[in-house]
């Protein structure tokens, strides 16, 4: 795909002008890093960072039967959501595997916003429309929204001067409708970094101005613009799954160790039968976190050996800039998933020792 066929987000040009090294990602031209992935990662752990996440998809599901449809399509229990609350969930195939992972925002009983992966947006919308029943409307609003993620322990103080709502009143995984720099916005206390933070859904046109304003209000906290590379290492330290790497059409929500978003006691939903069966029969493999014991960085797709035999590959692997360790995620046979279990990752032809560790690798303590 050449740069002419790539889509731009409302912030692509701002990112380029700020020194972003631009790459194609999910059909968009996105910054992979600005000055330094390491500095960006650490700024988010210690202060605050800004991410253009406008590529993410926004899909509204509205109408009297919206709740019913989402209960049928996703594995978490949408009935439990209160107005203004958000949860992480999975859009399920009948096999209990992932069409996508997503955030479900409840405005009220008849209005929900789904935040979905950019690369899956068209597939998700098709899937939802194929299963649409009753009085419900599905709108792909992605092209109407810019999205800025403000992440880090200083995110609240960075955003607060620009908004007309009391951010301290919004709990983690809740949202409010308000204004950012005078512009109507959805202000969600969510993120993909393992830090506190906000994801601001704004109209396209004022997004570059809001970005600049956040760079100003965050200045005393050392705010930096952050690219996809830092977003990836941050989410990996927090053991947040990446669709296409750690979860996909071949991995069930239970195998992905996401049982906490899989509410098998709720009414029937797509994938429930398969997941109940898998739970009864017992898992044969599970996603675990690991760290390298010997020297070497495990990277995505590197082959894995258990007891000397090949078993799949690393789904996500990297140097962890905050932890200063080489970490990763991998599906291992269930009998090899206990913390401490040794196995090997093949790095350029050599088997290098690794072991299963507790996750998340990083947990914020505030």
């Amino acid at each position: 795909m050449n740069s002419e066929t790539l889509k731009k987000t409302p912030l692509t040009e701002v990112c380029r002008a700020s020194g972003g090294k631009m790459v194609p990602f999910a059909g968009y031209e996105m910054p992979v890093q600005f000055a330094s992935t390491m500095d960006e990662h650490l700024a988010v752990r210690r202060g605050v960072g800004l991410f253009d996440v406008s590529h993410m998809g926004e899909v509204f599901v509205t109408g009297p039967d919206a709740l019913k449809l989402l209960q049928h399509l996703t594995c978490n229990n949408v009935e439990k959501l209160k107005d203004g609350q958000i949860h992480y969930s999975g859009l399920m195939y009948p096999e209990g595997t992932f069409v996508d992972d997503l955030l479900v925002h409840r405005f009220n009983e008849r209005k929900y916003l789904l935040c979905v992966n950019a690369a899956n947006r068209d597939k998700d919308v098709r899937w939802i429309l194929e299963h649409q029943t009753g009085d419900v409307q599905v709108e792909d609003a992605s092209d109407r929204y810019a999205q800025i993620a403000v992440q880090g322990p200083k995110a609240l103080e960075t955003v607060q001067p620009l908004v007309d709502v009391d951010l301290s009143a919004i709990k983690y995984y809740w949202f409010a409708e308000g204004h950012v720099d005078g512009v109507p916005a959805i202000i969600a206390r969510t993120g993909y970094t393992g830090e506190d933070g906000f994801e601001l859904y704004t109209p396209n046109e004022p997004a570059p101005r809001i970005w600049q304003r956040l760079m100003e209000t965050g200045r005393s906290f050392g705010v930096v613009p952050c690219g996809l590379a830092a977003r990836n290492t941050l989410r990996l330290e927090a053991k947040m799954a990446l669709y296409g790497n750690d979860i996909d059409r071949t991995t069930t929500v239970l195998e992905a160790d996401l049982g906490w978003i899989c509410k098998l006691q709720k009414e029937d939903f797509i994938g429930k039968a398969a997941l109940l069966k898998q739970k009864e029969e017992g898992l044969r493999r599970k996603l675990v976190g690991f760290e390298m014991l010997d020297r070497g960085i495990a990277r995505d797709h590197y082959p894995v050996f258990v007891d000397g035999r090949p078993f799949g590959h690393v789904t996500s692997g990297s140097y962890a800039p905050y932890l200063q360790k080489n970490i990763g995620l991998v599906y291992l046979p269930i009998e090899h998933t206990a913390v401490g279990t040794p196995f090997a990752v093949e790095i350029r032809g050599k088997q290098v020792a690794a072991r299963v560790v507790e996750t998340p690798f990083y947990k914020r303590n505030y």
Partner: protein
Amino acid sequence: MYSDDYLYTKEHEWVRVENGEATLGITHHAQEELGEIVFVELPEVGKVLAAGDTLGSVESVKAVSDVYAPVSGEVIAANDLLADKPELVNQEPHGGGWIARIRLSDKSELDSLMSADDYEAYLGEEKKH
């Protein structure tokens, strides 16, 4: 930036030859492209390499970059300091961040490497693409 006492490769390695021994590392340009280096895989001393063989690798948070032997010969030293201080490659790419030393088996191979002027011209060409 690029010393006349060194020779350079298209893969962005430098070589300094003294008494039939070639000390090598990655160039300033290469380390700048990679960003912060967090891991260096060093060659084993005693290993015999042909020019173009993979000698080791240099890794940033995001990327892995192989380091190739610019010349043929036996590895007679590796910079063990890089095991604990890979950032030396960023800080002193042409000095303290050297990666390995090879005893040349065929001095004529040096003729195919670039001079500092040639390398800078090559960098200029690469930039245009």
